[in-house]
C-alpha cells in the first residue's frame, strides 16, 4: 500500500511594531533582561490591556497579503494555562472571531505554482523567555506581550519540500509587506507542524500528530520527512497512530513524544472582558488596503512578462526590492530592457559593493542606463567603451552622450581611418596573417583584437572584421 502525507502548518510570527501589544514598552530584541517591562506586561494586579493600533493594522495588512477576508468583527479570548513565562497565566488570543480569515498563499513549487489555503491569521501575545540555570530558573519578560501573529494553513501541504517552500514564500510575503522582520535567529518565526498520513485514495485524514515549536524552516523539512516515514512505518507494521504532540530532537534527528491527547490542556477559553471587540470600519480597512504591496511571486511574473526578463533576473529584483524598483524606472520605455537589467544587475551592483553605496546614492539620471544601452546598440560606442562611460557616469552623474562627446570616445566607422588601423595591425603581426591564410579562423579574431588595441577601443569591431577579411582575402 502506498501512503501520502497531509501537512498543515501553524506559523507564529512576531509583528514589527514600535511597542508591545498591550502597553507602551518597546518591542525590541536583545535588550538586557527585564528592562522592557511595565506593570501591564508583567501582569501586576490591577492592570488592563489596551490594543496596539499599529499591530491591528499590520494584522489586517497581513491578512490582505495572504488574500484573507478582514471581518467586521473580531474579539479577544483568554487562553488559560499556568507557566512561569506567562505573566497573567492566561494568554490573550483570538479563538472564534479572528482578525483575518480564509485566504491563500501561492508559491512556486517544482515546475508550477502551488496554492495553500490559509484558514486564518490571528493576533495574540508572545510570552516571556525562560532560562534554566544549574539550580534555578529565570524568566525574561522583555518578549512578553510582543504582538504575535498565528498563521494557520489548511492541511493542503503534501510533503516536506512543499512545506519548506511554503514557509520561505510566506517569509518573503511578510518581509515584503513590512509586517515582520522574520528574523529566525531572534526567534521571530516559530512553527507547529501537523502531520498525518493515509493510504493514497482515502479521503478521510489519518490521526493528526503535532510537532511543536520548530524554529527553523530546514528543521521543519527534516522533522516532517522523519515523521512521515515514522508514521508510515508504524502503519506498515500493523500499528496504530494516536493523536499526540511531539517535539523535534534536532541533534538526534528524530521526533519524540511530548504528550498524548489524554493529558492535553483544557485551556478554558472565554472572551476577555477587559477588551472590547475590534470592529474595523470600512474606512479603516480601505486605509490599510493602501499599504498592500505587490507580492513577490506576482512581481516576478510581471517582471518576466513586461520586461521579457529571464526568471533569474526577475528573482534578483524580487529579492532586492529597492534594486527592482530602480530597474523598473530605468527600464521604462527602454527598447532592450534585458540589456538594462544586465547593467543594473552586473555593473551597478558591482559599483555598489565597490563603493559601499546604495540605490539612494546614484548620481546619474534614471534614464541614463537606457541611453547607454542605446549608444551601444546604435553602434555609437563599443561595449568595452561603454564600461568606461558607465564608470564615469557613476562617478560624476553625467549622462552618457556628453561623456562620449567630451572624451572623444565615439566609435570610428570611417573606412579609410579603419583601413589605416588594419594595415598597422597586419604589418605588426605577420605570423597571424600567415595562420589565417593557412585556414586558422581564430587568427582573424586575434588580429581584430589588435586593431581594437591600436584604435584604443574606438574602432567599430563589426566593420573591422569585414575589412580585415577583405584585405587578407584579396
Amino acid at each position, binding site marked *: 500500500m502506498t501512503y501520502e502525507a497531509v501537512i498543515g502548518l501553524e506559523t507564529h510570527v512576531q509583528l514589527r511594531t514600535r511597542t508591545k501589544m498591550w502597553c507602551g514598552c518597546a518591542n525590541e530584541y536583545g535588550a538586557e533582561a527585564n528592562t522592557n517591562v511595565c506593570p501591564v506586561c*508583567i501582569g*501586576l*494586579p*490591577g492592570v488592563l490591556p*489596551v490594543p496596539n493600533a499599529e499591530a491591528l493594522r499590520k494584522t489586517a495588512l497581513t491578512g490582505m497579503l495572504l488574500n484573507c477576508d478582514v471581518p467586521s468583527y473580531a474579539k479577544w479570548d483568554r487562553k*488559560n494555562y499556568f507557566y512561569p513565562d506567562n505573566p497573567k497565566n492566561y494568554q490573550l488570543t483570538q479563538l472564534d472571531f479572528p482578525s483575518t480569515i480564509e485566504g491563500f498563499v501561492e508559491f512556486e513549487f517544482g515546475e508550477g505554482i502551488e496554492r495553500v489555503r490559509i484558514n486564518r491569521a490571528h493576533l495574540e501575545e508572545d510570552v516571556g523567555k525562560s532560562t534554566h540555570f544549574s539550580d534555578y530558573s529565570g524568566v525574561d519578560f522583555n518578549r512578553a506581550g510582543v504582538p504575535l501573529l498565528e498563521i494557520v494553513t489548511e492541511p493542503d501541504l503534501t510533503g516536506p519540500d512543499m512545506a519548506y517552500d511554503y514557509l520561505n514564500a510566506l517569509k518573503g510575503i511578510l518581509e515584503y509587506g513590512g509586517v515582520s522582520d522574520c528574523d529566525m535567529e531572534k526567534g521571530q518565526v516559530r512553527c507547529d507542524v501537523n502531520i498525518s498520513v493515509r493510504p493514497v485514495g482515502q479521503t478521510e485524514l489519518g490521526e493528526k500528530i503535532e510537532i511543536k515549536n520548530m524554529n527553523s524552516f530546514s528543521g521543519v523539512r527534516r522533522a516532517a520527512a522523519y515523521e512521515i516515514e515514522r508514521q508510515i512505518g508504524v502503519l506498515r507494521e500493523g500499528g496504530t497512530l494516536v493523536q499526540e504532540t511531539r517535539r523535534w530532537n534536532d541533534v538526534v534527528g528524530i521526533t519524540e513524544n511530548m504528550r498524548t491527547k489524554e493529558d492535553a490542556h483544557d485551556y*478554558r*477559553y*472565554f472572551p476577555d472582558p477587559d477588551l*472590547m471587540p475590534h470592529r474595523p470600519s470600512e474606512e479603516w480597512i480601505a486605509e490599510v488596503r493602501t499599504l498592500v504591496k505587490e507580492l513577490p511571486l506576482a512581481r516576478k511574473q510581471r517582471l518576466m512578462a513586461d520586461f521579457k526578463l529571464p526568471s533569474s533576473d526577475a528573482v534578483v529584483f524580487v529579492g532586492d526590492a529597492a534594486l527592482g524598483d530602480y530597474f523598473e524606472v530605468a527600464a521604462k520605455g527602454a527598447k532592450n530592457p534585458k540589456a538594462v537589467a544586465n547593467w543594473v544587475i552586473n555593473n551597478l551592483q558591482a559599483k555598489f559593493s565597490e563603493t559601499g553605496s546604495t540605490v539612494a546614492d546614484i548620481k546619474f539620471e534614471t534614464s541614463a542606463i537606457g541611453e547607454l544601452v542605446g549608444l551601444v546598440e546604435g553602434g555609437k560606442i563599443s561595449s568595452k567603451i561603454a564600461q568606461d562611460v558607465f564608470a564615469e557616469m557613476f562617478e560624476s552623474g553625467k549622462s552618457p552622450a556628453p561623456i562620449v562627446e567630451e572624451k572623444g570616445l565615439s566609435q570610428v566607422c570611417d573606412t579609410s581611418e579603419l583601413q589605416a588601423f588594419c594595415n598597422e595591425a597586419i604589418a605588426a603581426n605577420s605570423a597571424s596573417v600567415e595562420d589565417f591564410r593557412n585556414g586558422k579562423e581564430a587568427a582573424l579574431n586575434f588580429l581584430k583584437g589588435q586593431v581594437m588595441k591600436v584604435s584604443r577601443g574606438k574602432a567599430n569591431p563589426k566593420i573591422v572584421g569585414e575589412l580585415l577579411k577583405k584585405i587578407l582575402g584579396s
Partner: protein
Amino acid sequence: MPHTLTISQLTDKLAQGELSSREATQSCLDRIDAVDGQLNAFLSHDPEDALAQADAADAARTGGKSKPLLGVPIAMKDVIAVNGHPLNCASKILGDFNSPYDATVTEKLREAGAVVFGRVNMDEFAMGSSTENSAFGPARNPWDSDCIPGGSSGGSAVAVAADECIASLGSDTGGSIRQPAALCGCVGLKPTYGRVSRYGLVAFASSLDQVGPLTKDVRDAATMLGVIAGEDKRDSTNVPEPVPDYIAALTGDVKGLKIGLPKEYQVDGIDPEVKSATEAAVAELEKQGAEVKEISLPHTQYAIATYYIIATAEASANLARFEGVRYGARVDGASPEKMNRATRGAGFGEEVKRRIILGTYVLSSGYYDAYYLRAQKVRTLIRQDFLNAFKEVDLIASPTTPTPAFKIGEKVDDPLQMYLSDIFTISCNLAGLCGISIPCGFSVSGLPLGLQLLGKPFGEPDLLRAAHAYEQATDWHTKRPEIG
C-alpha cells in the same frame, strides 16, 4: 471634631481658614487610634505620609489653589493601587507587595487634592458580603460590633460610618459598595459600568467591577463621582461619555420623576422592618411629587445563579496571576507546578478557592455551553428587563439588603445564604446600571437600613437627585454610632 465632617462641610471650613487639612487629617488619625482597634476597618495606614499630603494641600491652598477635594482625607479599599503602598486585597497571597503605580482613580483623587491614605479592610479579593473573608480578620459594624459591616467593601463603609475618614472608595461587583453602606448607615454609590476607570482596581470580575464612593451624605457622593468619573485610555471598557455636573443635579426637585417597584422583589425572607422602612422611603418620595408604579423584571430569579457563573469564571482567570513567580508570597516547590499549587493553596482563603474552583468548572471543556454561555444569554435577558423597565420609569427602588446586618459567624458555614444577601444588588452589575444606597431608617435593635435606587446607564444625575431629595427630608444620614 473635624473627622465627623462631610466633604462639603470640611472644604467650606478649609476654604474659610477655620481649619487646616493637617488638623482634619490628624483628627482622622486620632479617631483611628481611638476606635479602630475595635472595628478593624484599617489594615494599615501611614500617618506620616498622610500628614505630608495634608501639609502639601494646606500649602497649595495658601498659594491660592482650589480643588474639589483639596486637603480631604479619603481612605482606600485594599483592592485599589496606590503607588508605594501595600496592595493586599485582604489576602495573604500578596505577601509584602507594594504597588509601584497609582490606579487611575487614585491619580484623579490626587489631582483633586485629596489626602489619599490608609488601606481599608474587605473580603479577600472582594469576594464576600460580610468582610469576614478578610485574611486579616473581620471588620466590625460600628453600630454593633458583634455584627458584620457588610462586604466586600466593609472597611470602606466602617471607616466612613465611624468617622475614621471623611469619605472612602470601595468597589462593587455585585453589591459590594451598596450593601455595606446600607448595613453601616452611610451612602454608597455604584457608578454605571464604564463610568469610572478600572485601571488599578485589582480585578475580581472584570465585566462587573466598578469603583465607587462611600460617603456621609449624597452631596459628597456627587462630589466624589465628579472627581473619579471620566475617560481613561488605559481602560478599554471605559466609556468616553462626558461627565455631567453631578452637584448641579441636586435640585431637591423630584416632581414627575417616575419610580418603579419591581413586583419580583416582593420575595420571602425580607425582614419586616426593612420592608416597612423601604415603603416609607418610597412614600416620602411620592409625597415630594415622584410617581410610583409597579414594574416587572421577569428574569430576576436567575440573577444570582447567573452572577455566580460569570463572576467566578472571570475570577478564575483574573486570579491566575497570583502564583508567587513575579511578586507576592511564594511557597517553594520542586517544579513550577508544585510551587503554584503550594503558593495558591497556602495563600488563598476558603471563599476565594471556592470561587476559583467554581469558575474553573463552568469554563471547562464540555460544560462551557451549559454554564458560561447560557449565563451570558441570561445576562442579556436581565439587562433587557431593565432597559424595558426604564422605558416606563426613571428609577427603580428597593431595599438594599433583605435584612439588617447579621451576626459575625452567622452565615460563614452557609455560602448560599450569604450569596442571597446580595439579591437586590446583583442585577445592577449584570445589567451595567448605576445604583445607590442611602440610609432610610433603623431596626428596632438600632441597626441601619438602606434604600436602594437603581438608575439607567449613565443615569447618575437622576439617581443622585432623588437620593438627595429624600435625604433632605430625613435625618437618618446624620445619625452616628456610639462606639465602645
